[in-house]
């Protein structure tokens, strides 16, 4: 049985605690985008994707997920662990020597749940296209989901992939863009304005679903179900997920300052006070 909204929100709070404690412990990592995508990742793994028990690299006969903006590894690791892919206690090894939880996700250390390395931006869309084409060759009707940063769309490879996806009717792919309007050097509209992402995807032949409340579990689930309903109709589907970077920690919101910066002891304590519900910290 799938969890209800309250259960998902509680889990999201726990994931936020994990993210904050992980980046604090090693004084590095990317909390901003991780917190902004927490509700999405929780909803995706707990309520949207059709997943098998356990993990195998091929992902036959199940939905698979490709994280393209690998720097939000804290949220990915926390959600993977709390979805049963590896022990929650292993979150304590994030970014440490000899850990499977590298700074950016990789298959290299054999961490269950990860199917491709990411970190150098702009590569996940192509990987997802390939996985989606293989699913079609294998007669596997399951879907490929991806997540990308909005700033990441400045990488040209995305547009090669976006062009290919519609031209060859890759309609078993749902690519979600984390539209938080921020990147390392500032607002995306100042660093490199991208205009209307919706208009761009539509012009490239995609179906577009907008989720305006990208940090609201119910809105995310409704939007993703809408996206799912649009698959299999000859067009790839883009989800524009409007999020708040740093969501759930007041001083991390409405700024790009916490893109790649960890909280200190006092800041961590303050952040955890704002996220008190715990299912059991690692």
């Amino acid at each position: 049985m799938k969890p209800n909204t309250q259960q998902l929100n509680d889990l999201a709070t726990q994931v936020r605690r994990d993210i904050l404690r992980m980046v604090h412990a090693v004084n590095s990592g990317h909390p901003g985008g991780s917190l902004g995508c927490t509700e999405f990742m929780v909803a995706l793994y707990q309520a949207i994707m059709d997943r098998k028990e356990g993990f195998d690299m091929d992902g036959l006969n199940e939905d698979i997920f490709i994280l393209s903006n690998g720097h939000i590894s804290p949220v990915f690791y926390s959600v993977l662990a709390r979805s049963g892919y590896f022990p929650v206690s292993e979150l304590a090894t994030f970014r440490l020597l000899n850990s499977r939880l590298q700074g950016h996700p990789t298959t290299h250390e054999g961490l269950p749940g990860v199917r491709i390395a990411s970190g150098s931006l702009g590569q996940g869309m192509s990987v997802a296209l390939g996985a989606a084409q293989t699913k079609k060759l294998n007669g596997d009707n399951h879907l490929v989901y991806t997540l990308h940063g909005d700033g990441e769309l400045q990488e040209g490879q995305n547009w090669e992939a976006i062009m290919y996806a519609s031209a060859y009717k890759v309609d078993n792919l749902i690519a979600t863009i984390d539209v938080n309007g921020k990147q390392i050097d500032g607002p995306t509209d100042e660093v490199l304005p991208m205009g209307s992402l919706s208009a761009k995807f539509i012009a490239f032949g995609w179906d577009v679903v907008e989720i305006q409340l990208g940090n609201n579990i119910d809105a995310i689930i409704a939007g993703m179900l809408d996206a799912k309903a649009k698959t299999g109709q000859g067009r790839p589907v883009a989800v524009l997920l409007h999020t708040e970077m740093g969501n759930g920690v007041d001083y991390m919101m409405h700024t790009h300052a916490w893109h790649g910066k960890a909280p200190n002891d006092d800041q961590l304590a303050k952040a955890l006070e704002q996220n008190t519900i715990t299912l059991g910290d690692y």
Partner: protein
Amino acid sequence: MTKYTNTGSKDTRSGFGAGLTELGQTNENVVALCADLIGSLKMDDFKKNHPERFFQVGIAEANMIGMAAGMTLGGKIPFTGTFANFSTGRVYDQIRQSVAYSDKNVKICASHAGLTLGEDGATHQILEDVGLMKMLPGMTVINTCDYAQTKAATIAIAEHHGPVYLRFGRPVVPNFTAELEFVIGKAILLNEGTDVTIVATGHLVWEALVAAEALEAKGISAEVINIHTIKPLDDEAILKSVGKTGCVVTAEEHNILGGLGESVARVLSLNHPAPQEYVAVNDSFGESGTPEQLMEKYGLNSAAIIAAAKKAISRKK
């Protein structure tokens, strides 16, 4: 001197095409991707026979490499095809992260490598690709010497799990290895000799045989080894030969920096230091010209190998 017969000159890229065609019939997991160079890569037959397993990606090599990496999820064995320049330098980060670091079973098949691409000039004549690829952990690097070897290598890499860079070319060259066994990572001893070892790869292998014959006529006994797999290198074969001859010439259609010669030098310096001469491009770009003109101007032919062999022998203590 062991004699090899040219059974009819062909281009190595046609060996790739023939190998891919055979794989299409024998291995249903093999899929092929091409970036708008189907004819140049000789992928026409595979496309015709297996349209559902052929993916035309357009002039978008980065996407092609990423797609190939993704296609391995679910058990496919992707073969990508484009020119060597666009197979390596243009997509280095995609290969590094999505293929090599991710340990994906992708076969990067690269034609028109080196100077013998000819008239198109330096923009297309990559001489750095072996170096780029061999530096990637886990990458197997193969540079074939004729049609038969390229066909054999194409078939062999489908059975090898892991990323592979397969390098071949455009010119028509003697075809002489059909009877020789091809094993990834295993050097081929083409001619036994005692005075100097010539280690050659790619289009320089036939030139090495021509050189050895000329040297023999002058009373110099040259051992000729074909290294098709530059990584992992057959250290044992090189050490055994140079242990006997005491000096070596490496010959390749590549920059002297980063190529086979440096790999051989590493093995020798660690185990058995010996005089080594390099037949390679001396850290420069190429230019337009016929393949023959270019190979002569840049010193990549039998005459250059003969001169290098004499020099290597003269340096022996």
